[in-house]
């Protein structure tokens, strides 16, 4: 069993710390159990189970730090890994940016663990995927999909008395449905904390409907168009921007948050006033860790309010250097805090289409790459269902486009925001954006 309870974790970490002789020691324990099943051409292609449990030790003498890890848990091994980290620390060069460890804090209990999701088996995964394949076979379509669930925990304890623990679950399902002639394609991709919310049958029907309704796509001229981005397309475009909310790179002059003449855009109106972005580890749809990897508490943080940049993440080192308070970034990797959440309205995508005179509905984007770090201009393509809207109705499917557009410019051209939903590690509304730049046509389906 790779998911250890808070008490068991605390007991192991205390024992590890009892072996420590360094000036400062931080120990961490994390594990997960996950399973997956993959399909293609209406059949299962691969399936697997993965579990891991690993202990990490970080020992510091002055500003010299050594790290070591191990996956054996007898006393001798626990002592061995501490000694190894200490030996490596003595050999390491001094880190001028070393920050002393933090003391204890009261971290909020995380809400990210769902028993049902954690209890999924190869059989439950196969049953869920069988329902999806049936939709494709019944409609003489072809499905390729992937279902993956995971349960995990992580904890950190240090020689200054800090202890933090968090456990979480997640399940993600995606499926591409194509017609047999290869002239139509549809896609869905949804993630949940609670597997009870995942309906592979209903989702595959959406993808199947996109596949059949995208047949016979017409070519229209590339150019600037009003677009309605479904939440998946919006998260494809906006997924990367939140990483740029960082004070250090802005201060260093190498970020879109840097200002001409020096300084940052903190406090400036950088986006349309309809734009409000925050992160919240206690959001039930997108729960995250309530503490960061370096032991800072993480709560709800507002990043953009009415289009104004309200906060930039600050590491402890940079905060000390600049005389400001440290602040953990939102979601992902070393940060706690859950992902990006953007406010919207109440309109459904159908309602947004109804009040659109002329525009393009985008299901998703694909192969997005940064073109210019200065302006965040990205390129990529539409995929799996792109439609022309006229006088409040979808008129016909259109051929896929390549775009070159900056999410910063996009968030200045907001016409309307719909009802937010979770998409991957973000909660975003469908959004109507004017003057979105498509630069060429693609023959891909």
């Amino acid at each position, binding site marked *: 069993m790779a998911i250890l309870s808070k008490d068991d974790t605390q007991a192991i970490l205390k024992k590890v710390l009892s072996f420590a002789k360094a000036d400062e020691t931080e120990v961490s324990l994390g594990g997960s159990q996950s399973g997956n099943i993959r399909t293609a051409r209406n059949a299962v292609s691969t399936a697997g189970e993965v579990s891991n449990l690993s202990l990490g030790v970080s020992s510091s003498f002055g500003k010299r730090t050594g790290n070591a890890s191990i996956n054996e848990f007898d006393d001798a091994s626990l002592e061995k890994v501490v000694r190894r980290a200490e030996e490596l620390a003595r050999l390491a060069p001094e880190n001028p940016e070393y920050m002393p460890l933090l003391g204890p804090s009261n971290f909020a209990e995380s809400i990210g663990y769902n028993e049902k999701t954690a209890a999924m088996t190869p059989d439950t995964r196969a049953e869920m995927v069988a329902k999806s394949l049936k939709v494709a076979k019944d409609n003489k379509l072809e499905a390729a999909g992937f279902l993956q669930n995971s349960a995990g925990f992580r904890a950190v304890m240090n020689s200054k008395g800090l202890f933090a623990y968090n456990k979480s679950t997640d399940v993600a399902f995606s499926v591409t449905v194509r017609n047999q002639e290869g002239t139509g394609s549809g896609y869905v991709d949804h993630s949940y904390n609670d597997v009870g919310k995942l309906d592979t049958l209903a989702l595959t029907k959406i993808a199947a409907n996109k596949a059949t309704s995208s047949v016979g796509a017409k070519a229209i001229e590339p150019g600037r168009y009003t677009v309605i981005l479904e939440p998946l397309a919006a998260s494809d475009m906006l997924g990367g921007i939140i990483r740029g909310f960082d004070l250090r790179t802005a201060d260093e002059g190498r970020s879109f948050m840097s200002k*001409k003449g020096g300084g940052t*855009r903190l406090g400036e109106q950088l986006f349309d006033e309809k734009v409000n972005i925050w992160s919240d580890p206690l959001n039930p749809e997108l729960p995250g860790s309530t503490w960061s990897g370096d032991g800072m508490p993480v709560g709800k943080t507002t990043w953009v309010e009415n289009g104004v940049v309200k906060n930039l993440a600050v590491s402890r080192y940079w905060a000390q250097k600049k005389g400001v308070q440290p602040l953990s970034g939102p979601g992902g*990797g070393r940060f706690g805090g859950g992902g990006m959440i953007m406010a919207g309205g109440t309109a459904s995508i159908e309602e947004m289409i109804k009040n659109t005179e002329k525009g393009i509905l985008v299901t998703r984007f694909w*192969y997005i790459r940064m073109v210019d770090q*200065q302006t965040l201009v990205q390129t*990529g393509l539409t995929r799996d269902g792109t439609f022309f809207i006229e006088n409040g109705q979808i008129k016909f499917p259109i051929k896929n486009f390549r775009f070159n557009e900056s999410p910063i410019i996009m968030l200045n051209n907001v016409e309307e925001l719909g009802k937010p939903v979770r998409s991957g590690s973000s909660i975003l509304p469908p959004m109507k954006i004017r003057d979105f730049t498509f630069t060429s046509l693609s023959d*891909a389906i």
Partner: protein
Amino acid sequence: MKRRNFIGLAGMGAAGALLQGFPVLGRTIEEAEFLVQRADAAAKKRMADIALQAARSKGATYTDVRIGRYLNQAVITRDNRVQNVANTESYGIGIRVIANGSWGFAATEKLDNDSIAKTAALAVAIAKGNSKLIIESVQLAPQKGLGEVSWKTPIEKNGFEIPVKEKVDLLLSVNDAALKGGANFINASIFMINEQKYFASSDGSYIDQDVHRIWPSFTVTKTDKASGKFQTRDALSAPMGMGYEYMYAGPEHKVNNGPLTLYKGRYDMLEDVKAATQHVHEKITARSVEPGKYDLVLDPTHLGLTIHEATGHPTELDRVLGYEANYAGTSFLTLDKWKSKNFNYGSKLVNVQADKLQPGSLGAVGYDDEGVPSGQWDIIKDGILVNYQTIRDQAHILGLKASQGCCYADSWDSVQFQRMPNVSLMPNKNKRSVQDIIKSVKKGIYIVGRGSYSIDQQRYNFQFGGQLFYEIKDGQIVGMLNDVAYQSNTQEFWNSMTDIADQSDYRLFGTFNDGKGQPSQSSAVSHGSSTAKFEGVNVINTGRKIG
């Protein structure tokens, strides 16, 4: 039960970008542990035989076993300091079987006899479970047992035996040169990989391989406070299937085709960073490109990525068949185009070869991860599509009697599947220099280095940037340009190739982290070419204003 240990290289700031996809799997280990004697082949054969026997007794009709020890080292620096030295190791066994006509796979890091037998049984149980949801049984191309054989990357200096201090000193001297030259920031790193792989199959093969790869890299950044602009220039190195000898370049490893020095088979990091520091200054003030049609002269440091995306990927047979439809995508190079024997992929000058043997390349191995000996074959011949890339369960689809040996797994606990071999553009058979090609261009751009890249899921429409863009006017390079990207369609683009330099300019490009599969796996592959000319390609200006 599979088991995987991830060691995150956290807290790395901007260097994190360099690490994306770097397979830092495994436990951290001390430098000295890298040098521990390899487990001997006889011990691995005993373990493999236990797995083969256990799987057969449970009903497997075919079994292969991979026992892998994967060593990685990453030395990462920023400006005047070391950010991280990470040594990782991952060791375990992966067992793949066919039972009831279906594949099954299981892996464990526990290498006692009992765990190996249980894992083999689990693989058979998963195969039998999966067999309820398959449409046709796996059909495996024959592969004769090879007995006990071995292969080793022909390295001159084992990078893992070079003291970390030597690598740190080199990187800090590189950083020092950039900062002294007026750069504001630099990230520099060296990544090394050693795959010690043992393969055994129920066909009677026992294959011991020792594979080495190395990748030195940097990014130099220059900011301009007054304008609020910043520019970067990445290293013009290539990741290689070599040892530490790659880091020692002599005059014979340097190519000078005009405005800068480029590297062939070896790399001079210190010399390149000095040039890069000059380049970021020039890039800050370079003229923004006028969009329109240009003749492009593409250096191998750039063209390799275009070959990778627009030739390598669409000729992967699993994509063509739809196995990657939900992730990496499908391909426009459908089987009917291959069967017609006249699908005009490119101009007559376009000859593309797959090659799993090429010395110094990332894809060079003696045998693939299902025990097939490495080979070489044509993919595009005189502009016509003639072949794909296959593994054993696909060969019959092309009427081939044997696999082409394109099977790879990125770890012992990942299941092997079809991955790209080295795919290279053949040089001009006639004598032709880059200088002569540039002289033949009236209005063009000479592009060096890899930049942003994006291509659609069937590999028709693509857009590529680069590191350095030199404007060509009436056969002369006249200065540097900014905000350049070109957009084209694969077939149109390769048909616009009207010139290519000869063998003397032929160099390898490489990519360390090609992603494919769900869960995603990473593979490393090289692409060779000489500098080539493409006529009348659409160039766009990527510059925009924000705020």
